[in-house]
C-alpha cells in the first residue's frame, strides 16, 4: 500500500512515471484496491504513466534443471521502465519469488544484482517484503542491500489496533528513529511524527474573544491569544461543551472556519442542544464555516484519531479547532501514551496558528480538580476550570481561570449561568469567609440589601435628629443673644444714669464751692472735669 502510494504520488505530483511489478495480486485486483484509496490506476496506465505488471509464479509449473538467473525479470522490468521512462519502481512482494523458486542461493544473488541494477539505472525502487520471525524480512536480504528500510507493523493494544511505521535505516540522511503511527485513510497513507523535533512555533500577539464577555474580562479583557491552546476542564454537567460551542459560534461570527471534533454527541445533537442555550450553530454549518466531525472514540486508537484530526485540519484549514472532549480519546489508554500524542496534536495545531479549545472531563465533583488526569495541563496556555459547587441543597456552576500564560487574568471565581440566552457570568458573593453562589448568593444579596435599607433609614433618622438639634441650638443662641443685648442695654442705661447723677453732683459741688468762695484749682475742680 505504501509502495502503491509512492508510485501514484510520483506520477501525479512529481511527474515521475512508475512501474508496479507485483508478484501477489494481479493488475485487476490492485486497480480495484487502489480505487478504494481514490487512485485511478487505469487512467494513469492509459496515459502511459504507469505500468502494472503482474508476475505470476506457480511452483507446480516450474522445474529446475540447472543453472539459471533472473535475467528474464530484469528484461521485463527494463522493458517496462524504458517504455514509459519510469523513474520509480515497485516490487511487491519479492518474497513470492522465494516461494516460487526453490534455489534460494541463486535468488539471493540475483536480488542483490537486481538492486544494484536498479541503482545503476537511477531508479528509485520500493521493494516490499514480509517481516520474518527473527529478522526484518523473512529471507533476510533487504536489510543489507537496501538504502532505506521502513518497517510497518500492526499492533493490537487494548482491542484497538494501530499501524505503526518506523524508519529502520536510511543511508545518508538524518532520520527520525521513532515509531510513527500511520493511518490508511480515504486519501491514502498519513503519517504523524510522534513528536516534532523543534519547539519554535510562532506566537501571535493577537487576541481573540471567547464569546463570553465576562470571561474575556477575566482574561485580561481581550480573550485568548490566537494560536494558543485552551483547556476547559470540569466535572460532568459543568458546561464544558457549552463553552466550546460558544467559542466556535463566536469564531464563526467573525467569519473564521471552525472545526469541531465531537466524541460524545453527533453533529445533529450538538446543534439541537446548543440551540437550547441560544447558540445557533446551524447557519454556520450550512455556510460551510463550521464543520462538525463526530466519531466514536473507540473507532480507532488514539494515534489514529490524531492522524485523522491531522487530515481533517489539513483539509479544512480552520482557524479554530474545538475538541470535545479530549479525555474521551484516552479511553483504554494510560497517561504515558496519551501525553506525547496530545502534545503532538497541540504542537501541530500551534504550528498552524490554530487556536484550540479542548474540553476535558474530570471525574467526580468535589475532589481536587486541579489535577487533570491527562497530564496535559502543562501544555496548555490557558486553563479554565469549571466546577460544581454544591451548597444549600443546590448545585451551581462556577468558573475560574486557573492559568493563562502571557496575560493578566482574574483570580476570582465567577458563577457560570447557562440560560436560554446563552452563557453569562455573574459575580459570586464574596463574603469575608466564603463564596456563595446560586440562591444562596441571591439570598445573601437580599439580606445585604435589607441591611443596607435599614442602615439608610437609620442614617436618615440620625440626620433628622441632628437637624432638630441644630435648630434647637440656634434658638438657644438667639435667646442668649437677646439676653446679651438686653443686658448691654441695661448696662448703658445704668451708666448713663450714673453719669447724669455725677454731673448733677458736680454742678451742685460747683455751686456749693462758689457759694463757699473756694478757688478754682482745687482737686474737686479737676475731678469735676473728668
Amino acid at each position, binding site marked *: 500500500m505504501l509502495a502503491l502510494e509512492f508510485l501514484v504520488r510520483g506520477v501525479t505530483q512529481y511527474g515521475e512515471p512508475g512501474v508496479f511489478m507485483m508478484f501477489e495480486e494481479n493488475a485487476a485486483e490492485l486497480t480495484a484496491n487502489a480505487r478504494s484509496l481514490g487512485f485511478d490506476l487505469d487512467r494513469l496506465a492509459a496515459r502511459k504513466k504507469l505500468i502494472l505488471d503482474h508476475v505470476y509464479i506457480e511452483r507446480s509449473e516450474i*522445474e529446475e534443471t540447472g543453472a539459471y538467473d533472473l535475467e528474464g525479470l530484469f528484461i*521485463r522490468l527494463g522493458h517496462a521502465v524504458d517504455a514509459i521512462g519510469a523513474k520509480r519502481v515497485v516490487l511487491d512482494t519479492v518474497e513470492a519469488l522465494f516461494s516460487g523458486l526453490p534455489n534460494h542461493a541463486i535468488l539471493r544473488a540475483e536480488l542483490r544484482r537486481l538492486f544494484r541494477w536498479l541503482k545503476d539505472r537511477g531508479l528509485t525502487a520500493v521493494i516490499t517484503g514480509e517481516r520474518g520471525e527473527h529478522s526484518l524480512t523473512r529471507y533476510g536480504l533487504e536489510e543489507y542491500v537496501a538504502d532505506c528500510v521502513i518497517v510497518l507493523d500492526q499492533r493490537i493494544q487494548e482491542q484497538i489496533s494501530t499501524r505503526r511505521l518506523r524508519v529502520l535505516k536510511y543511508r545518508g540522511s538524518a532520520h527520525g528513529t521513532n515509531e510513527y503511527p500511520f493511518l490508511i485513510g480515504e486519501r491514502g497513507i498519513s503519517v504523524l511524527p510522534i513528536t516534532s523535533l523543534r519547539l519554535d512555533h510562532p506566537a501571535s500577539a493577537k487576541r481573540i474573544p471567547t464569546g463570553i464577555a465576562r470571561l474575556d474580562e477575566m482574561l485580561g479583557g481581550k480573550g485568548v491569544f490566537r494560536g494558543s491552546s485552551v483547556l476547559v476542564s470540569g466535572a460532568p454537567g459543568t458546561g464544558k461543551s457549552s463553552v466550546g460551542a460558544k467559542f466556535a459560534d463566536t469564531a464563526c461570527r467573525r467569519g473564521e472556519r471552525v472545526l469541531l471534533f465531537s466524541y460524545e454527541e453527533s453533529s445533529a445533537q450538538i446543534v439541537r442542544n446548543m440551540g437550547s442555550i441560544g447558540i445557533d450553530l446551524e447557519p454556520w454549518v450550512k455556510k460551510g464555516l463550521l464543520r462538525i466531525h463526530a466519531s466514536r472514540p473507540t473507532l480507532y486508537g488514539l494515534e489514529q484519531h490524531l492522524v485523522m484530526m491531522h487530515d481533517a485540519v489539513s483539509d479544512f484549514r480552520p482557524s479554530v479547532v474545538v475538541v470535545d472532549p479530549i479525555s474521551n480519546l484516552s479511553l483504554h489508554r494510560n497517561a504515558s501514551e496519551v501525553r506525547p500524542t496530545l502534545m503532538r496534536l497541540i504542537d501541530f495545531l500551534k504550528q498552524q496558528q490554530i487556536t484550540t479549545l479542548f474540553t476535558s472531563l474530570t471525574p467526580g465533583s468535589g475532589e481536587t480538580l486541579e489535577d487533570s488526569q491527562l497530564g496535559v495541563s502543562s501544555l496548555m496556555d490557558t486553563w479554565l476550570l469549571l466546577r460544581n459547587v454544591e451548597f444549600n441543597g443546590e448545585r451551581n456552576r462556577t468558573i475560574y481561570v486557573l492559568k493563562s500564560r502571557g496575560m493578566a487574568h482574574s483570580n476570582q471565581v465567577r458563577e457560570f449561568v447557562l440560560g436560554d440566552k446563552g452563557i453569562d457570568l455573574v459575580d459570586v458573593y464574596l463574603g469575608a469567609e466564603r463564596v456563595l453562589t446560586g440562591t444562596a448568593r441571591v439570598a445573601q444579596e437580599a439580606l445585604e440589601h435589607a441591611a443596607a435599607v435599614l442602615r439608610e433609614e437609620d442614617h436618615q433618622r440620625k440626620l433628622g435628629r441632628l437637624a432638630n438639634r441644630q435648630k434647637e441650638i440656634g434658638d438657644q443662641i438667639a435667646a442668649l443673644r437677646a439676653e446679651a443685648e438686653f443686658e448691654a442695654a441695661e448696662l448703658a442705661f445704668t451708666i448713663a444714669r450714673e453719669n447724669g447723677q455725677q454731673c448733677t453732683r458736680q454742678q451742685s459741688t460747683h455751686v456749693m464751692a462758689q457759694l463757699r468762695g473756694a478757688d478754682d484749682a482745687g482737686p474737686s475742680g479737676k475731678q469735676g472735669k473728668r
Partner: protein
Amino acid sequence: MSAALAFELRLYVAGQTVKSLAACANLKRICEKHLAGQYRIEIIDLTKNPKLAAGDQILALPTLVRRLPKPVKKIIGDLSNEERVLVGLDVRPI
C-alpha cells in the same frame, strides 16, 4: 505430421550467454534423443524482443516453456539435468 506438433517448445534466452548457449545445446540434444520428429522449438531472445517476456510470465532465464501439450509447463535453468528436463516435459525416457 500430428506427431510433429505434439511438443511445441519455446526457449527463452537472453543474448548469447554461456547459459543460453548451454540451454540451446542441451535442449536440442534431449529432444533429438527422446522426441525425435515430434517437436518444434522456437528460440526467443528477450534482449531483442523484451515484450514477449510478459506473455509467458518469464522471470528466470533460460526458461523452456512447453506450450503443447497442455498444460503449460516451465522449466528453468540451462537444462543440464536431463532427467529433470524429461520430468518437466512429462516425457518418459526411452
